[in-house]
């Protein structure tokens, strides 16, 4: 874990220093983040002009979901997705060889080495939205809720990371897989809304097939004080087991890459 943090810090520093040269990217990203915030808010506005609750969610609670959605998608686009895209490219070009000859855990290396710094704007904006939602929800929020939320958020990021890693690892077998990340992106869009509003089959799919429910709904439930400890434990257990599975699958993929199984 220490080496992950250390390397991430170095890669982040170099990434930031380089991005600072291209300020246009910052403005483009700020515009994009604002746009997704505005469309999100507009969507909420439309819904609540017709009704006061949506599947039991009040307006500030839905705002919290939007905030979590922004934060998690910020993390996703800041580090996870660039890393996975780079990994697929490296498998296709054979440059993964360079990663594998480094004296460092290959999974750590592939996970930290590509970052898109300005995407963090989504994280900042999302945090502001969450703050606003919370201030409308409660007069004061207790420490347990905050702790539950943070844990749920970490579990959410881990789940999304592990899920994408499993998809990306498939590129050891099927070389052309770019579209698979795009499909995930569009599924993730569904996370703007609580999964409760979807029909049962879709809810099932968004919970167990593509873990969107764990990425946005569950952390927001924690904020709203509606998450039971059991559900939180479930989310943590899922993220831990998905992470373990992803790591194992990665090592299987590597063995295939090295021709150990062939």
């Amino acid at each position, binding site marked *: 874990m220490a080496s992950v943090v250390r390397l991430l810090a170095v890669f982040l520093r170099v990434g930031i220093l380089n991005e600072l040269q291209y300020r246009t990217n910052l403005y483009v990203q700020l515009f994009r983040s604002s746009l997704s915030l505005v469309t999100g808010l507009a969507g909420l506005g439309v819904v609540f002009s017709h009704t006061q609750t949506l599947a039991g969610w009040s307006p500030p609670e839905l705002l919290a979901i939007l905030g979590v959605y922004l934060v998690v998608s910020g993390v996703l686009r800041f580090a996870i997705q660039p890393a996975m895209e780079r990994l697929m490219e490296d498998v296709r070009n054979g*440059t993964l060889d360079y990663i594998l000859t480094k*004296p*460092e855990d290959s999974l750590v290396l592939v996970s930290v080495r590509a970052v898109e710094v300005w995407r963090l704007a989504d994280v900042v904006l999302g945090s502001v939205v969450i703050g606003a939602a919370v201030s409308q929800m409660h007069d004061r929020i207790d420490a347990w809720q905050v702790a539950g939320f943070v844990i749920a958020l970490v579990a959410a990021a881990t789940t999304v990371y592990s899920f994408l890693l499993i998809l990306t690892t498939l590129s050891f077998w099927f070389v052309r897989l770019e579209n698979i990340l795009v499909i995930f992106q569009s599924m993730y869009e569904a996370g703007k809304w609580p999964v409760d509003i979807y029909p049962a089959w879709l809810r099932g799919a968004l919970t167990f097939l593509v873990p969107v429910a764990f990425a946005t709904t569950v952390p927001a439930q924690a904020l709203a004080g509606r998450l039971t400890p059991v559900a939180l434990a479930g989310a943590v257990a899922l993220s831990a087991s998905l992470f373990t599975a992803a790591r194992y699958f990665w090592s299987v993929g590597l*063995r295939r890459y090295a021709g150990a199984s062939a």
Partner: protein
Amino acid sequence: MFRAVWHIPAKGGANFAKEPPTDPEQDDGTLPVMVIPAVEISRLRKTYSVPVREPGVMASLRSLVKRTTRDIHAVDDLSIVVNPGEVTGFLGPNGAGKTTTLKMLSGLLYPTGGQVRVLGFEPSRRERAFLRQITLVMGQRNQLAWDIPATDSFELHRAIYRVPRPEYRRTLDELVDLLDLEPLLPKPVRQLSLGERMKCEIAVSLLHQPKVLFLDEPTIGLDVTMQRRIRTFIAEYNRRHGATVLLTSHYMADVEALCKRVIVIHHGKLLFDGDLSSLVQRFSPYKTLTIELESGSDRIGDLVDGIGEVMRSEDGRVTIRVPKSDTARLTERVLASLPVIDLTVEDPPIDDVIERVFAVERVTSNDPPEAHEREHQSQ
């Protein structure tokens, strides 16, 4: 098996400039220390199983249910020992198994059979202590990030290898100096020319001062000046650090300039292992005679016909190939019978020798190429 015995430098010492003795009998008075060979390969095999694709729609459909695969023996019963500090050229035509061997040596591929040891480590275990001491440079693949300056990639490399700052500074200064990198470092890599990029690629892969260098066509696609530059650098690096270098190249100039020893493989099998000069001796029992004749001598070809095989003939200059043992007699005959202005006797160009090596192998090989590929079916 150990072929030579000498001291190994404690830690990439810059003072290890002395040529290591190649003969165990040549003792310089100090106690001989048994050292581990830098590279030791014994009976190495690597077999790929590739699907056979037959033409036609029906065949393609059939292959969905019943896949026919074919075994390709990329490396077949290869045994090599390379001693520390040696610069060895690894030659063979495309697909001979050179890259596959280098990949097994750097731990990227698991051998199908046989043993590989590099600095005493088993590469496929990819232990950190092992990976820290080697480097792999592939001329056709870049490792520097495209959008950031080389200097930043160097910094990332330092972090990955955990090179202490002062040591890093020293190594970097040396590399910048030797390769003339100063003006290149702040530019994003995508703005560099191919040659400039290759210099940076080589520099980044040496920042951790590896003891063993696997260079897979490091000069490919570079112009002659840049090739020479890279070559000089490799030689100098080897001299200063006593690093072991295993190099593949299609440019014989690289091999001639750098490698005393060459290993030739073909179809994954060892064809030759020894000095470059003895390769020429063994595979080319010929000399070339380049004769310049007085202007006006027409029908040059006819004139020299019967003396040796004509290889080239242009503007009064003709190059013929003669059996080595007859060189003196035939030279005399040429001088006596033809209006010669100038005459040069040379060993044939190394490219021609290598070409001959493979030609000879094809003729004398007792198993036809099909034997390398056995077909079998799997459901």
